């Protein structure tokens, strides 16, 4: 292991600790916000926003997506498109009032 390589890993470890602290703080925020009993649409938006930030931190730093090869990004882009389509299905069904007038 070269000195440069060791220094690089040390830098990574410092980042992991920082991300860990951020995740802990955001977990407290998630729970604290739920005690405010906000209107449901706002509560859903805040909860999903905080969860998305936490998920992004895990994916970018623990899963090293911040510095990954292009092919992985391509696979994930395709996944995001299909995932979005999947989540859009309930919305489309909702707008058709499917379950109200089957």
């Amino acid at each position, binding site marked *: *292991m070269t000195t440069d390589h060791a220094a690089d890993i040390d830098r990574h470890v410092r980042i992991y600790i920082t991300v860990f602290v951020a995740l*802990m703080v955001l977990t407290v925020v*998630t729970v604290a916000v*739920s005690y405010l009993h906000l209107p449901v649409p706002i509560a859903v938006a805040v909860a999903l926003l*905080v969860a998305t930030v936490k998920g992004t931190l*895990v994916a970018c730093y623990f*899963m090293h997506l911040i510095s990954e090869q292009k092919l992985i990004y391509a696979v994930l882009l395709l996944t995001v498109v299909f*995932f979005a389509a999947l*989540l859009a299905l309930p919305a489309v069904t909702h707008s058709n009032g499917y379950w109200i007038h089957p």
Partner: protein
Amino acid sequence: MDIPYTVEVRRDTGLTNGKIGIWLFLASEVMLFGALFASYILIRTGAPSWPRGDTILNVPLATFNTIVLILSSVTMVMAWASLMRHRFGAFRMYMGTTILLGGVFLVVKYFEYSDKFHHGYFPSTSNFFAIYFTLTGLHMLHVLGGMLVNAYFWGPGAKQWKTNPAWFTNRVENSGLFWHFVDLVWIFLFPTLYLL
């Protein structure tokens, strides 16, 4: 015949085969959980009324479990970093801690499930509990699966460190990618099931 591209990267993909393999698997996992999340949205928005999770479920226990899983993600990535630093003893400690934290998560879930069953709440009780047990049950199976793989690398699989340390390090990284994904899924399950 040796498995190709376990350590050296393929020129066309810029990746080892294991790395692209685990990411393709995780992409399929996103769709699996995505389908269940979509079902949850559809059932919840179509229901005349839906209970807030915190009126039925145990938020303090789930918060504790969230912290446990985040901690386990840190120890998992530290296990990989230890191998990168050629510190096998530290790897064993961090990987062992990761497995133990996974065990703590499952024990807490056991108490949560037992409490629900004791009070007569089953998947057949309501759509809320059907979704709750399906999503958390599938997630628990993933925790168990990750623990088994990690236990293999902590125990018998660790022999590879002596013969091919670079390949072993890559395998631990790939197993870590799965473990972090399991953490990531919980990060979304926790607020959507317990807090909203």
